């Protein structure tokens, strides 16, 4: 017998609900359904085969496919061989997503892996931003270069890179202000920071609790500056992880780490299979 479009649609109905409830954006669910239909409709199967299982496995494979990036980034493998120090990473993202805390966690992780780090306090806008990053850096044991509120974020980053060059520091982590993808000026400011610092990586920090809005955020940010990698924070809030699928589908950048708490060790390397299991509950 063969698999009909009806077979696929019936099996997809609850799977679709499952994905939507796991915070996979609607357009990504649509896309997955199309892929599954193309792949399975008309496929010949033995009589008595559980068609539902076939569809379910196809969905899992499709999800795993989206989650597995074309380029896989191994941060340490990228940093260590780089001759000309420092290795520069700029962090960008929507307001409150977890950038500053993630930078502190990553600084901690890099130090544990034998690398020296300095942080650029390039959020010169938000109240308390400089005190926040300074305190985090103090607790982790890394230096912060700052200019002060209202100073030019690109200039602070540039200064930090010069400081790192002079002292042979391995990595510069640039903290930037949260910004709204619909704010033209803030998007331009971000472009300028990237243009001036010429970073090795631009990392988008996203909130794992965000819904469909994360697609537009990721797209607009990626349009403004090429996003090389993603870190998804607050996964410990029982977020099902669908946001990972939405972002991967929207911009194709690899997810490097996920934040699973507010402690400095709460940063774990992204594992596609682990997220797959979370999404499928």
């Amino acid at each position, binding site marked *: 017998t063969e698999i009909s479009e009806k077979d696929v649609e019936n099996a997809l109905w609850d799977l679709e609900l499952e994905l939507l409830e796991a915070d996979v954006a609607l357009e990504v669910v649509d896309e997955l359904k199309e892929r599954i239909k193309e792949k399975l409709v008309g496929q010949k199967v033995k009589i008595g085969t559980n068609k539902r299982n076939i569809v379910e496995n196809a969905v899992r494979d499709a999800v795993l496919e989206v989650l597995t990036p074309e380029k896989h980034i191994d941060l340490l493998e990228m940093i260590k061989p780089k001759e000309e120090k420092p290795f520069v990473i700029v962090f960008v993202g929507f307001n*409150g997503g977890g950038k500053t805390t993630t930078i502190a966690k990553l600084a901690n992780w890099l130090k544990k892996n034998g690398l020296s780090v300095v942080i650029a306090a390039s959020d010169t806008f938000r*109240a308390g931003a400089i005190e926040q990053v300074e305190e985090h850096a103090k607790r982790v044991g890394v230096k912060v270069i700052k200019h002060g509120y209202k100073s030019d974020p690109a200039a602070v980053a540039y200064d930090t890179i010069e400081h790192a060059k002079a002292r042979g520091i391995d990595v510069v982590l640039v903290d930037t202000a949260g910004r709204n993808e619909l704010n033209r000026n803030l998007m331009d400011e971000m472009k300028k920071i990237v243009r001036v610092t010429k970073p090795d990586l631009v990392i988008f920090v996203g909130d794992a609790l*965000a819904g469909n*809005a994360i697609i537009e955020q990721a797209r607009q940010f990626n349009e403004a500056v090429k996003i090389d990698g993603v870190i998804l924070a607050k996964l410990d809030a029982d977020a099902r992880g669908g946001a990972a699928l939405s972002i991967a589908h929207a911009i194709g950048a690899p997810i490097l780490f996920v934040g699973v708490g507010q402690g400095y060790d709460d940063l774990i390397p992204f594992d596609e299979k682990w997220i797959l299991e979370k999404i499928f509950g």
Partner: protein
Amino acid sequence: KLGQSLNNALKKLARASTVDKALVRDVVRDIQRALITSDVNVRLVLDLTKKIEKRALEEKPPAGVSKKEHIVKIVYEELTNFLGKEAKPIQIKAKPTVLLTVGIQGSGKTTSVAKLSRYFQKHGYKIGVVCSDTWRPGAYQQLKQLVEPYGIEVFGNPEEKNAIKLAKEGVEYFKKKEVDVIIVDSAGRHKEEKGLIEEMRQISSTINPHEVILIIDGTIGQQAYNQALAFKEATPIGSIIVTKLDGSAKGGGALSAVVATGAPIKCIGVGEKIDDLEPFDPKRFVSRLLG
């Protein structure tokens, strides 16, 4: 662009001379997609659209009202059923009125406390702000930098590790100063952090606020319902503020929070500046949800 497909479906319905079941199903399906893309809870969307479809097929539009107008009216009615017909403002009755803000990490509590304090100050009230966040580095400085330029005092103590003690001392401090409104900011927390949820329960039972305000991030997805429920089970929620609606997010998650807490949305945050706070307008919110 989802609003476009909904409009097209409604146009088809307007041109139809009879109530076509298939056409109504089309419109309802487009409404479902619009609401899901706006982050309304999926199960809630299914319940709502079942009701909308039933009413659209069974109810006769009143005289002079087209089928299309009738369906749009039904959709608005079903959605505003949860949200209320008009916004209720935060009441300042007792002297002093004590408000407590709670919510998930990064949702916009501290910024909203600053906005609220400025709003009340403009209405002639004397304000005191308390920072009871003992977890986030720079929390006290953040609040001070936001409101001190307006002559609003912040009580805090970065050395104090007990949030309940800090909240209690802050409220007592401002009660002695005879302010009209005391706003207490608290640390971010989520439902899996049982210790922090318990801390919030204790802060609330100790300072006994007139209103506990749940701050909901406008970008929140399907977790909104469960998270809001956990907050409500720890302490009654008096009202909700939905933040970051100046971005692409439609704020559908806030609808789930209303259902879970039984509390009305009173204001929305539309930016990072101190004046970026607007009273909640249910009609505008619903039309945004529908794209």
